């Protein structure tokens, strides 16, 4: 442990407190055993394929169709959440209305409700005989068991992300900025566009990216409502499951590699966005 501690070399003044060697050692061992080594298994396993084989697996038409659906629906769902999440955050911070506390608490429902439960509940609602589905069916709109159903599930999953990243920024926003803009003659919409929105943008983008990242990997809430028709409504995580059920471990792993790389890129983007957000809102000062 002392070797570990020596490597990380905490500056001398911070060594007054005990337990650095023990806590950092435990952290690293636990992290390696449960996360890093298992994750590296994916990359090592995929190395069993040659580059050409790997390419064939990850660009098979059915797999490509699943990328299109997963990415397209996730982007759209994140965009819908950016717009309505902002409206919801705005209402929760700025307006008074009955049931506000309850709504504020229920915004986190997608975090707390098991995805399988969300999946069957959304299916029941949006199926042709469901409360919402039966209203849409006469209009010729089918939601459950179509790509639209995938979108609905992904919107549900992403609700808290935008709301909870934008809400604290809105709460901390000094009213003086809007007062200054108004005293300088700016109309409400001008103030929103030129003063408030630029301050919210980093948080809004962070929330968007978080919702998107979550949506791309989502499985439980989608598979019930998607219908899972090959080439039409199969999401990428389902492709991994399908390959596994056919005992095609290498194939499943190859698709997993594609998804993991995307996740890491998104993680990087999100980290940069959060740093920007912290800087832009002055929270680091």
């Amino acid at each position, binding site marked *: 442990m002392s070797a570990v501690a020596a490597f990380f070399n905490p500056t001398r003044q911070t060594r007054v407190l005990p337990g650095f060697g023990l806590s950092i050692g435990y952290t690293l061992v636990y992290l390696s055993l449960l996360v890093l080594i298992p994750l590296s298994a994916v990359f090592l396993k995929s190395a069993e394929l040659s580059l050409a084989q790997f390419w064939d697996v990850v660009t098979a038409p059915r797999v490509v169709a699943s990328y299109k659906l997963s990415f397209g629906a996730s982007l759209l769902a994140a965009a819908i959440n950016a717009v309505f999440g902002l409206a919801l955050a705005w209402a929760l911070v700025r307006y008074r209305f009955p049931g506000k506390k309850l709504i504020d608490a229920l915004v986190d429902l997608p975090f707390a409700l098991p995805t399988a439960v969300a999946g069957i509940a959304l299916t029941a609602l949006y199926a042709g005989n469901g409360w919402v589905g039966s209203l849409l069916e006469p209009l010729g709109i089918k939601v459950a068991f179509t790509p639209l159903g995938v979108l609905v599930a992904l919107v549900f999953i992403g609700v808290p992300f935008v709301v909870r990243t934008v809400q604290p920024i809105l709460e901390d926003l000094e009213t003086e900025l809007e*007062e*200054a803009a108004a*005293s300088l003659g*700016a*109309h409400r919409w001008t103030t929103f566009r*030129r003063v408030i929105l630029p301050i919210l943008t980093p948080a809004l983008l962070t929330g968007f990216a978080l919702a998107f990242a979550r949506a791309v990997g989502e499985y439980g809430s989608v598979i019930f409502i998607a219908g899972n028709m090959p080439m039409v409504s199969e999401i990428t995580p389902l492709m991994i499951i399908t390959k596994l059920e056919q005992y095609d471990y290498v194939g499943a792993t190859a698709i997993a590699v594609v998804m993991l790389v995307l996740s890491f890129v998104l993680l990087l983007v999100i980290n940069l966005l959060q740093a920007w957000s912290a800087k832009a809102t*002055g929270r680091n000062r």
Partner: protein
Amino acid sequence: MSIQVQDIHKQFGNFTALDHVTLDFPTGELVALLGPSGCGKTTLLRVIAGLETADSGRVILEGEDASGTHVRERQVGFVFQHYALFRHMSVFENVAFGLRVKPRKERPNEAEIRKRVHRLLELVQLDWLADRYPSQLSGGQRQRIALARALAVEPRVLLLDEPFGALDAKVRKELRRWLRHLHDELHVTSIFVTHDQEEALEVADRVVLMNKGRVEQVGTPQEVYEHPATPFVYGFLGAVNLFHGRVDGEHVQVGDAVLPHDGRDADHGAEVVGFARPHELDIVTDPAATAGVAAVVSRVLAFGASARVELDALEGAAERGEPTHYEVVLTRERVTELALTEGQQVRLVPSSLRVFPREAA
């Protein structure tokens, strides 16, 4: 432009922020709203700006009732205590904001905006900072940029909320002088809020003293300092010594002591509180003297141009609800002459004593 507020009342729940305030701010003056925190001064400023709506009463700008006018139509310049600069905009864009958001018909063209912003930045002596962002400026610089931004729309009045409150002592003094110069140059009717009496007396043409939502006194700095109208003003402006007593003809009876008094402002036999500034008290060391309130010297601070003597009341003052502490300012010569020692019992005799009925104090 002149500003009048008539019978303004503002309530926040159970708290009365403004209690039927009526005031007149003449054109071109620099007025200070002075008072302790919670006295309603900032609320009054915000009501004048249109940022706060009064429960009743009227705000009249240039003879026109502006009570129903939205803040963006009032053409007031407002400088916020913490400046409220837009941090995602450069200094230039901050100052240009008010011009850029004008309706298209009134909006100056880009060249004109550029010219006006640079002229304002020169006025506040910060032209060289045009491309910086607010986070790169010092507190004093931010304050001046906030002022330039407010002036850009050519406001009819300039309102400043604790303009020097967030600055350190040295910068504060410098900016005070600068604000005074700027006002002499521009002559925009200006009101600033402060809780610092020195600031108000030094900078303003006229001081409005407020307490608990009411106006206590309005006057020039000299008037309010030398002739306080109420016990509150007496206590708020500068150090003061208090004496609880009863008026007895040409005297005020304080306990078993007698203080000379000119008999103004008081009826015979009235319970009063007497006020005397530290320089309005003299110390008598003669043990045989009978005039004046007895006290014990606790500390003599003899440095600088004058000397300050701190004294404690005799025992039992606190129990009777009377002041336990006095402060006297004397010339250096007088202190040398008196040769005071710590623990010495003396008597305090006011050269001038202003009395107010007990209940008013």
